[in-house]
């Protein structure tokens, strides 16, 4: 359980950075940390005690392999999820550059105009 708790703490730290900090770069850092926490959560879900990587090496029996290897499914999902996080961060960075060019600041409080 303590592992899940640590991941949850990481997630909440990221959420705090994203919601409360007024600097756009800090928000992006929060997004990044949340992404780490989620990816780590997925990998931990697939972990088996004393497991090996889900990659066959020559000279290994398939029965052995199936019993020992960690779950490959979460790893495949995390591969996708990492790329999705990267693309969101890419997009957010370009938004923040654009905002900086208009206002000369990354401070969300200064640039804020919309009320809703």
């Amino acid at each position, binding site marked *: 359980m303590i592992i899940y708790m640590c991941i949850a703490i990481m997630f909440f730290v990221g*959420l705090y950075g*994203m919601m409360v900090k007024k600097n*756009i770069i800090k*928000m992006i850092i929060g*997004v990044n940390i*949340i992404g780490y926490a*989620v990816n780590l*959560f*997925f990998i931990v*879900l697939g972990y088996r005690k004393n497991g090996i990587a889900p990659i066959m090496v020559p000279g290994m029996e398939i029965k052995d392999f199936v019993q020992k290897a960690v*779950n490959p*499914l*979460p790893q495949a*999902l995390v591969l*996708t*999820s990492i790329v*999705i996080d990267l*693309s*969101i961060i890419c*997009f*957010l960075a370009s*938004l*923040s550059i*654009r*905002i900086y060019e*208009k*206002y000369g600041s990354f401070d969300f409080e200064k*640039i*804020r*105009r*919309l009320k*809703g």
Partner: protein
Amino acid sequence: MNLIISPVILYLLSAFLIALIWKENEKLAGFASLSFSILSMISVILLGRFVFLNERIIYFVGGWEVPIGITLMVDSLSYIFLFTLNSMLPLICWFSITYMKKYTNPGLFYIVFSLISAGMNGILISMDFFNIYVFLEIASIASYILVAFGLRTEEIEASLKYTILGFIGSTLIIIGIGLILGKTGTLNIADFTYIAENLRKHQLWFILGLFIAGFSLKTALFPFHFWLPDAHSLAPSPVSALLSGLFIKVTGLYPLFRIITNIFVMFPESKIILIGLGLASMIFGSFMAIDQIDIKRMYAYSSISQIGYCALSLGIGGYWGYLGAILHFIFHSLSKSLLFLNIGAIEYKYNTTKIEELKGLEDKLPYVVTTGSIGMLSISGIPPFGCFWSKIVIIISAIKKHYYGIAFICVIISTITLGYFLRLKRNIFYSKDDESKTVEISYNLLMPMVILSIFILLSGLVFTPNIKIYLDKAVYIMENFTYAKIMEK
């Protein structure tokens, strides 16, 4: 049965091909996008025959069986969404060919338009949790881009806000998916439902909560609504039509339909949450819409209120409740898209959406005023038009379940809706202006609106009794079907 996957493939191909050619020829890009969307509409119409003959179509991508590969499924419920989506996308695309001439580089717009369409189609046909997440992300990122397409400062700020909140929604959903993977070891919805019947309730409520929170954020139900008015009012008008009319329903409402009725059937109490959320957003949206000075912002708040009707009807449940939810989805999509296209046409001519700056449009743009009035009357529930039928069904469903207070609130909110639309009409359409000369408006802007308003008129007069047989099939699925039945066969 390769027709089931053809909309996604066609829209993806369209995006990649337009990305190759848009720099040389921007006009061709628009026509390519339009023709691909018409092709996918045709393929969906062809698919309809098989769906209603066979009850449901199941497709194994790559030929791998149920828990191993990704499985796709279309039944009559998702077919209704698929049909509405794919028949409206060509109209919106047609409208934007002229409208997007105001913007630089419309070629990029068509790429993103194709991507968002591919994403929405992918959500509707999928039967795999993670696959739904991936296509949800495609559609969401494309919508963040479209909101910022005009590159004005407010638009970029709205996009930033929308991106951050949309990311939170996606994160809640993916944590739920992770818990499903950890609990049951599978990602297939049918397989999960089959296993979940044997799990105890306290192992599942957290997943359900995460899903409801995440998808209500995408749908903009009341406590999670605050990104919607900014995003939908600042986007280019065809994009607002797309987002308000289709996007929030396909990415948020359709998964909620499935989750409440077909997946987590062991939690009947989750419907009460939906009634609460729906009522709150109905009341809040309509009261906020009353004193807006910007027309698009008023329409956006009205969207929150009308989405509340859908969620409320889904929460009430039973035959009439589900029928009302589906009907209101269809008619509100038609009417709200019509309204946003309408204001887009006005904006194209006058470059403003403020109420004070527009006057006496009745003499200047007669066709636009006629179609706009049809849309407004439909949304406020005036008898012959579409939304009247859905609202009356929702009220009947509330009365049947003895929720008299809710029925009363529905009527009141409908009256308020009528009130603010009448005020809008009096101010911008029928007020007197000094110069009253008919203004030329492009055929391409007008035709999609005319087609949509003909649909709304017909839906009130002819269609509703005739399409009832198809709707009954979808309602039957919402009432009786769980995904576990697929595994039992």
